[in-house]
């Protein structure tokens, strides 16, 4: 039919642009476009560079902490939102607000708050918690980037988890209370396993987003260690080493893919419990009794 005509404009544009960018990156990473011809030198060069590994470590660290932080924060809020609360719509609106704030603005807001003479330091000084201001902007570990990721992504995690939690029938939660489950048992044995698919989606999407982050790292991140995207950008635009940049780009993509698989594998065992409790022979024996 004319199906392909319908799909062409939307799907076609996506496939075309993504495909050509992917094609370029693949070609360039092995130097196929140069006169020298194909070579794996760019791979071995880039992969033997300790700077890359520092970047990988930094990016992985901030993404793991950022995505976990967002999800851990979102769970209790989502549980809280299940209850009837006056003004719920307004509360949900407020909770979503960070999503509407562009990343750069978010970075600016945070820097403002945590800068040397920012409100955080001043309040801590005034409260007597510290006696000289803390230097926490552009920290080496990446805490400020983690904070930004959490700030920006919690609403997203909240939306995914909330809709998953809200779709649990209240009968099921009543049943678990009826059978003697405490609030914690109810969460860990019923709510959490039932929200695993949403949790996977939230973790994967936030993690991949954070892994490819450029803006947060280059504004609020460490001055000594680059995030992978920043490193790739510098390599391409400051040193014009397109081939190395392509290798870094592919590293980001491979890491994204691997982490998606890893997240799925690590969370899946929590979803269902079907391990046999008793064997058939046990049943026979008890039948005879």
């Amino acid at each position: 039919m004319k199906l392909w005509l319908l799909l062409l404009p939307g799907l076609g544009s996506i496939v075309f642009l993504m495909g050509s960018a992917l094609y370029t990156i693949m070609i360039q990473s092995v130097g196929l476009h140069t006169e020298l011809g194909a070579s794996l030198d760019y791979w071995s060069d880039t992969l033997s560079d300790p700077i890359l590994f520092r970047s990988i470590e930094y990016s992985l660290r901030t993404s793991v902490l950022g995505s976990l932080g967002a999800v851990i924060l979102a769970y209790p809020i989502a549980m809280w939102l299940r209850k009837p609360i006056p003004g719920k719509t307004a509360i949900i609106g407020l909770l979503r607000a960070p999503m509407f704030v562009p990343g750069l603005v978010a970075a600016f807001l945070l820097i403002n708050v945590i800068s040397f003479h920012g409100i955080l330091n001043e309040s801590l000084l005034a409260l007597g918690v510290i006696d000289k201001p803390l230097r926490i902007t552009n920290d080496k570990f990446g805490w400020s980037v983690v904070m930004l990721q959490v700030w920006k992504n919690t609403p997203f995690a909240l939306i995914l988890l909330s809709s998953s939690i809200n779709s649990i029938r209240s009968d099921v939660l009543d049943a678990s209370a009826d059978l003697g489950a405490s609030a914690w048992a109810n969460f860990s044995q019923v709510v959490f396993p039932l929200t695993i698919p949403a949790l996977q989606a939230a973790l994967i999407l936030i993690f991949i987003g954070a892994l490819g982050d450029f803006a947060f790292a280059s504004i609020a991140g460490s001055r000594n260690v680059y995030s992978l995207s920043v490193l790739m950008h510098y390599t391409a635009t400051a040193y014009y080493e397109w081939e190395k940049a392509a290798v870094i780009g592919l590293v980001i993509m491979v890491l994204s893919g691997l982490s998606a698989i890893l997240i799925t594998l690590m969370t899946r065992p929590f979803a269902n419990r079907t391990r046999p409790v008793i064997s058939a022979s046990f049943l026979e024996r008890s039948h005879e009794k």
Partner: protein
Amino acid sequence: MKNNNKLILIISLSFFALVNFIWLVVPFFMAVLWSLVDPSHPWSFPDIFPRVLSFNRWIEVWQTTSLPEAMFNSYSLAPAVALLTVTLAAPTAYAFGRLEFRGKQVAELITLLPMVMPTMILAIFFSSLLLDLGFSEPYFSIVVAHTVLALPYAIRIMSAGFKAVPQDVIDACADMGASRITTFRHAFLPMLKPSILASLIFCLVISIEEFNMSYVLGAPDFITVPTILYSFLGYSFVRPDAAVVSLFLVIPNVILMLVIERLLKGNYLSQSTGKA
């Protein structure tokens, strides 16, 4: 027991208010405060509060920096992106919303790719491709790049819109001998209006706040509001200027997103990601 519940509610609500205060109000308040610092009376340590508040900074930023140019660029890019995206997305959204075909799920997954692919990678290698082709027209390449980034959202929102049109309304139209165009106008259009509008606005928002593509493809001369903010936050860090530009970026954004909320009644995210 009843009072106890009420107490818990009050405690949780006030806790929420406090957290939100720190989480949202304080950062924005600081930004607004910084943007209102009078240029001739700088706010510096140990002043707890700026000495003079005025809108002079806003005027100064507008007059002395290239913000007007960036605004012009951003706001001429965005409508082009929005129109192009919705036009391209509509047929595909129709196919996803109303037709069943083999490989539909795969096709739907592929449309989500631009959402998960790090944009910096796309930006750099799209620019490299354009460089190889000898093409250097930043306005046009940014429009194309933004369109691809916005397409997944537009397709999602609009295919949900197409899906929501009840088959019996379409049948009824056809049954009464309406032509295809009339059917479209009377059966589809009224139900699609909110999702088309929401898609348009979503595209505007995406384009206006998009940084990576604009930064890489526009470098070095073509500036947009986010890229100018980036430069104010980076090598030429002037806090009050950055505050002003931040607000220039965030205020229209929030207003537009509120409009979308209204249009899609808060479902836009579940519609646009399909995950929720």
